[in-house]
């Protein structure tokens, strides 16, 4: 059974890793996966803390729309990903305002998200003959990442992590107790908006590896596991990054040696870790 699934595996770890690293596309995929995992681990931890999982998901859908719009217009895909996710973050912050109320916020996000998906589907169907392309936009491909893309990913991740790092203390305060933070002069609304923008960038980046639909596997699940295991902020962020890294590396490796897609391995491993964390704590 296992040998049917992992057809390429010789079961000798050293030679298997050597074989994998002999392919430039695999090296690129691992590099990109590492960058994305670090970034998703950091922003995901704050996203789970702030209970903005749904907003994160809606932004990932916007990434799909952006990519399909870029494909239709003949522009670089990365431009579409980042442009639409940034615009989506601005739209959310504008629609929900500084004082968040869950019910009206979720209706707004839901309407926005399905409109974005609908438009994405429209762009794809106007751009004929890309049904296979649609699959990879939605579910990701790690085979086609170029070295230039890795550099772009690294630059965006560096900026985003630096921003989160600079604002970490006030952001933590504003997320845990917005009312007290506001009374102490912390710009809660501005921080919320800035965080959505960073989340949008992060999602746009992750989408290029995992596809728009599976962003969640790296953003939510490692962070949720970390929140289960520790309440201490710094330790939690580190744990979330470590889990995201482990899941990405193992997922990419398993996918390389098997006939099944990377998204399945990444989501399944991270979900298994989350279940274990729930059972332990």
């Amino acid at each position, binding site marked *: 059974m296992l040998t049917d699934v992992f057809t390429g595996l010789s079961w000798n770890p050293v030679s298997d890793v050597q074989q994998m690293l002999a392919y430039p596309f695999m090296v690129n995929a691992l590099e990109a996966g590492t960058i994305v995992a670090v970034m998703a681990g950091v922003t995901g931890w704050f996203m789970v803390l702030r209970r903005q999982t*749904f907003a994160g998901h809606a932004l990932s859908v916007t990434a799909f729309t952006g990519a399909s719009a870029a494909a239709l217009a003949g522009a670089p895909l990365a431009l579409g990903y980042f442009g639409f996710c940034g615009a989506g973050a601005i739209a959310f912050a504008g629609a929900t305002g500084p004082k968040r109320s869950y*019910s*009206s916020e979720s209706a707004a996000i*839901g*309407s926005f998200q*399905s409109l974005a998906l609908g*438009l994405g589907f429209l762009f794809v169907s106007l751009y004929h003959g890309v049904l296979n392309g649609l699959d990879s936009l939605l579910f990701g491909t790690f085979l086609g990442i170029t070295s230039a893309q890795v550099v772009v990913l690294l630059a965006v991740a560096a900026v985003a992590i630096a921003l989160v790092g600079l604002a970490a203390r006030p952001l933590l305060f504003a997320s845990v107790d917005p009312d007290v933070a506001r009374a102490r002069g912390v710009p809660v609304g501005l921080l919320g908006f800035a965080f959505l923008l960073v989340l949008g960038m992060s999602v746009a980046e992750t989408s290029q590896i995992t596809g728009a639909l599976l962003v969640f596997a790296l953003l939510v699940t490692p962070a949720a596991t970390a*929140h289960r295991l520790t309440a201490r902020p710094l330790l939690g962020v580190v744990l979330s990054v470590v889990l995201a890294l482990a899941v990405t590396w193992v997922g990419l490796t398993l996918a390389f040696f098997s006939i099944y897609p990377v998204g*399945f391995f990444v989501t399944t491993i991270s979900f298994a870790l989350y279940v274990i964390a729930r059972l332990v704590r």
Partner: protein
Amino acid sequence: MFAQEFMRNALIAGSFVGLACGVVGYFVVLRAQVFAGDALSHVAFTGALAAAAFGADVRVGLFAATILGGLVMGALGDRARADDVVIGTLFAWSLGLGVLFLSIFTTRNSAGNGTAGIRVLFGSIFGLSASDVRTSVVLALVAVALLLAVARPLLFATLDAAVAAAQGVPVRALGLLFLALVGLVAAQATQAVGALLLLGLLAAPAGAAHRLTARPYRGLALSTAFAVGSVWLGLGLAYAFPTLPPSTMIVSAAAGVYVLALLASSRPAWPSRILATDR
């Protein structure tokens, strides 16, 4: 337009999908469970592909997966209200499974080349058969009748769970039943507008209704009218302009209604004022 059989089928099935989505969506928005509805729509995708991959009837996979998904999410959350982190993790995994089933399906049927997945994701309302239409009508009527039967206690349990529980309302059981009903409607709507777009019919018309009125029964009626109207408008547009996909047009019409309602009511919506104290 009405001379075409596929168009008649689409209109009948679409109207009943709109009816069910409008009624159930009203409570989904009131209970702030739009994200759960979203997750169920992705579970629908996984269920349908699992059935396709193993050669079973797609509809069986759809309904089994969504109703089970609704029950699991309800069971994991407090007071049968799953919190968004639990929903997010479950849903990421269900998508991963969906991708797996998609790849199994495409390797088994080399002729299918992935279009089955696209059909499930984005719907095929112009390709419904007469028996699909009958199923859709019956299911919509069942879901709406069940929901209206529990509408009063459900409303009570939603607005003030603690007082409702003290008065002997089975809050937890109602929450579970409700999520299972959302699953049923999600599966039914997946056949028409697709797993990815049905959220538009659940959230947008109901969100608009909540913006416009605070009275529950008037809101329910408005939400249903908006949902059915969006389906008709979307189908009409897609018929008039054949390059436009019908599911996109339906969802765009619903989102348009929502934006108009936002503009028409600048004051904060009623559920937000009530539920704000809950958080």
